[in-house]
Structure formats: structure tokens, C-alpha cells
């Protein structure tokens, strides 16, 4: 490099000493280039994250009056299925019985519904394994069965068997009145 050129700066250091001004220029230029490329890379990565309008479609309201006892309605929320289940006494009893079982993802039934509203279960209907939509009434726990790789959920939506690691997720929701919920 420059230090081999005849007449180059005689004070030019041998390796290991303080960097001189030329080194500084090299380092600064390299850092600048890396910083610029890195800084530009981020917008190109982040553009793939959810866009503003996608984020804005966050909450919906739902009228529970439409769901008969023992029925389940599936609606779409943020592109995902949402289960709104009107549980029978038998289902609730079975769910409470499950509280003491050896659970993979420990939660009591109480923690999975709003206080005093045990008959209403609101769940995100995607299997916590790889995201298929479980069907109600399959599997040996009276709850949901996932057709993809055989995960079995109980009447509280808790994982009991199969490859899924977690219980069916309970989204953020609130009762606006006795018959209306707001999800998200």
C-alpha cells in the first residue's frame, strides 16, 4: 500500500502503534460504508413487517346472542379464526375436573374465562403446534382435535395430547354488556 511508495510519509507507523490520520480515514470510510449499508438494509427488512393498515384492523365487537347453548361460532379476527363457544354445564364440569390433571401448559379453567362467565369461552382457533384450525368434538377430552398432527385439546382449550406445546390462546377481550364482547 501507500507505505511502500518512495517518499511516503516517513513518520508512517509500523504495525501496532497509534493509528495515524490515514488509518483514521480508512477506518472512518469503512465504518461509514457499513453503517450506510446496514441502515439502508433495515427499511428493506422492516417493510415486510405488518403495515399500518394491517395493524389498524385490530378489534371487533361480537353479539353473543347469536350463539346457542352448546354451540360454537367461528369468526375471523386479524385473519385468524376466533372460536366463541357457549359451553354446556357438562363441558364446564369436565374442564374444572381437568384442572388437577397433569397439564403440559398449566392453567385452571378459571383463568381461561372471564369471572362469572364460565359458559363463554373465547379462543384463538389456531393450533399452537403449526397453526391449523382444530375441530370441536374430536379427541378423547371432549374438546378440540387438530386434524394436522393430532393435537387434542380439552373443553377449556388446554393442550392434553399431541405435539402442540401450549393451550389455545385466549385473546384480549372484554364484556361490553351481558351479550356483547369486544375482542382486541
Amino acid at each position, binding site marked *: 500500500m501507500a507505505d511502500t511508495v518512495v517518499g511516503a510519509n516517513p513518520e508512517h507507523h509500523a504495525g501496532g502503534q497509534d493509528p495515524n490520520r490515514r488509518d483514521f480515514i480508512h477506518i472512518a470510510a469503512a465504518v461509514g460504508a457499513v453503517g450506510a449499508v446496514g441502515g439502508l438494509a433495515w427499511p428493506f427488512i422492516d417493510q415486510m413487517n405488518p403495515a399500518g393498515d394491517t395493524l389498524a384492523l385490530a378489534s371487533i365487537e361480537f353479539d353473543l346472542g347469536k350463539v346457542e347453548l352448546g354451540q360454537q361460532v367461528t369468526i*375471523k379476527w386479524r385473519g385468524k*379464526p376466533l372460536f366463541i363457544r357457549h359451553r354446556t354445564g357438562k363441558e364446564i364440569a369436565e374442564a374444572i375436573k381437568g384442572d388437577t390433571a397433569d397439564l403440559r401448559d398449566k392453567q385452571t379453567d378459571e383463568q381461561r374465562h372471564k369471572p362469572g362467565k364460565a359458559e363463554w369461552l373465547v379462543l384463538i*382457533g*389456531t393450533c399452537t403446534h*403449526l397453526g*391449523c384450525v382444530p375441530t370441536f368434538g374430536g379427541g378423547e377430552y371432549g374438546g378440540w382435535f387438530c386434524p*394436522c398432527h393430532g393435537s387434542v385439546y380439552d373443553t377449556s382449550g388446554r393442550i392434553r395430547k399431541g405435539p402442540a*406445546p401450549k393451550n389455545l390462546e385466549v385473546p384480549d377481550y372484554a364484556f361490553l354488556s351481558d351479550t356483547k364482547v369486544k375482542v382486541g
Partner: protein
Amino acid sequence: MSGHSNYEPKTGFERWLDTRLPVVRLAYDSMIDFPTPKNLNYWWTFGGILAVMLGVQIVTGIVLAMHYVPHVDHAFDSVERIMRDVNYGWLIRYMHANGASMFFLAVYIHMFRGLYYGSYKAPREVLWLLGCVIYLLMMATAFMGYVLPWGQMSFHGAVVITNLFGALPVIGPKITTWLWGGFAVDDPTLNRFFSLHYLLPFMIAGVVGLHIWALHVPGNNNPTGVNVKSKEDTVPFHPYYTVKDGFAISVFLIMYAAFVFFNPNALGDAVNYVKANPLVTPAHIVPEWYFLPFYAILRAVPNKLMGVLAMGGAIAMLFLLPWLDTSKVRSMRYRPAAKLYFVIFVVTCLILGICGGNLPDAHVIPGLNTFQLGDADLNSMVWLSRIAALYYFAYFLVILPVLGLTETPLPQPESISSPVLSHPANAPAGAAASPEKRG
């Protein structure tokens, strides 16, 4: 691309061009005069077949893209319109959909060829690695292409595969959201998959260029696995292999055409002719046939993260292979023990494919209920795939490393031109191919 060139420009224009951009020289040296071992068999024709199939996919794909609409509300209908209304749209789509299957069929044969004849060993490691990269890109391309028609299988396949990344600790869920561009597989996902599905085949073409470059440095391996020693051992690529490859390509295209014209949906899933519905998963979701072995490995493991890692590991094995096999003998022709394990390996891959296509609890032998072990039914597809997956990994991680150190190979021929004495098939009657002790 390397070494000495015999090209002599004939016309004034060729001389003029040759001193400015020697492309004719490049083509001549790599496709006409290229010295090629004289003993290549038909397993060596799949490289040419693959090149043709890549071309077919690109041409048919670009035409499809002229009519296809990448939007969740229109994608399914636009594909149906291609099928019904666009002139010859049915032909072009069936060529593309079946072309993907043919492409994978050819690549699997091509890879097993490499496995058997030791084409991944020195000095061809980089060539092999580039092949593995092409295979990965093909899988990504085919997966995203399958999402485009936006049928039920497209959609739920996309959900399952993108959720695989969610198994990674901490960053997993962030990656899936990033891949989706939302909270679920939706319009942004379809759009980006279309963009990438268009791009990746051209990246494949680029890597194919490197792959061929890396081939032309050491030259072809051959069925004996013995290095080319002299000019005696080779013939020029043209006309010998242009004709042989051309014949194989023709036969392959006839089989391809048989699918396209007589049974175009044989390899596809009927459920994909139902428009995607995010609220209902089909009862039996399966990927396209070429992914079934990996799908079986995924399902063989009861834990989510471990299942995903096992599936990734199955592909990683291919990348590590050049350093796992300890044998210096390339061709399994001279490795009787390895040959046996190889045959079992091929069968294992087929078994994994069958397991992946069936429900996990389906019985392997129908109507037999005696193989119960506690909670487990050993007569089930899951258990069969567990055993097969175990062999798959053992082949790479135990058998090939150990066998190379313990086996006694048969004597290899001196050169490609003199395999008569050592090829067991050619041994004169009465004289055992290998009288010496065996391992």
C-alpha cells in the same frame, strides 16, 4: 472454463469477437470439446434433464404470471380463468404444475446418483454444496408456488410451513409475523410469495451456472469413481453426450407429457381446487409428494421444536455429507457393504414418503391391533416413520463415517479404460471378483 482450450475461431467475425468477449470459446470448451469420461451411464443424464426442466418452469411461469392475479380475492379465480378461458392456459398451467413434480423427480434421481457414486467426495465438495443450495432454493420456490393458486391446501400448507419458524425460541414468533406481514397468512403473504416465486428460479439459474463451473474444474465423476488418467479415458462432450443426454431428455419429456395430457392432476391434491378458507382446515393436510419424507420426519418427533430441528437436520445432513463419509473409495461399485446400506437408505426415503402421505395413526398393516405397547401402537405410520427417520440419520452420522474405516473395498480398476478385471459384473466366469478377505 478451465485449462487448455482447443477452440479455433473460423470466421473473421468469430476472431473479432473472441478477442473481445470469448463466449463462443466458452461454449465450445464446455459443451462441445469438453473431455468427458467415456463410461458415463444414464444416471448421468439427469443434469441435462434438470436444465431443461428449469427452462420449462421459467418459460411457463412467465406466461402464467401474465394472467395470474396475486390477491386473496382474485388469485383462485384467476387460476380458474387460466384453466378455462385463457387460450391454452390449461396446457401451460398443467405444464407448470406437473413440471415442478418432474423437476423434483429428476433432482432426487440426480442426488441419489451422487450419493451412490460418491460424487460429493474430494475434489467435488463445492460442486455438491452448490447442488444442495439449488435443492434448498427449489424447495422454497415450489413451496411458494404452491401457495399461489390459493386453494385450501395452498393456504393451510403455507400456515403450517411458516409456523415452523415459530418453533424457534424467542425470535420464532417475530419471524413468522415478519414472514406473514400480518397476524396470519393473508394478502401481504400471498403478494410477497408471488414476488419471490418469480425471483428464486433466476437465482437457481445463477447457482446452476456456478454448479457447472465447479463441475468443469475437476471434470465429471464416473461410475467407477476412478480419476481420469489419460486421454484414453475420455471422449468429447459433443457428439457423444449431447446425443446420449438428448435421448434421455426425449424419453423424460415423453413421460412428462403423459402426465400433462393424460393425468394432469394425478400428482396434485383435489382439495386444492377448493378456494382457501382460513376458518376450516381440510381433514387431511399433506404437502406435495416431494416434501413428504421431510414432513414424515417432522411428525415423527412429538416435540414441536425438536420436530422442526429434525426436519432441518435431515437437509443439513446433505450439506455435511462430504465430511461425514470417511471412505476414500468413491463408487459404491467397489463397496459391497456400503451398497447394501445405500439400498436400504433409498427404501427408507420411500417409506418416509409413504408415512408422510398418511395420517399418523393410520395402520401400516391394516386390521392388525396386536402391536400395542402401553400407549403406543407400533403398527402405525408414526412409529414406522420414527424407525425410518432413525435409519435416515444413522446412515449419515454412523454408517458412512464408520464404514469407511472398517470395510474392505473391492479392488478398484487402474483406470476407467481397464475396469474389466475388477468390475464384478465383468469378471470372467469362475474367477471370483474378490478372492481376498472381506471386511
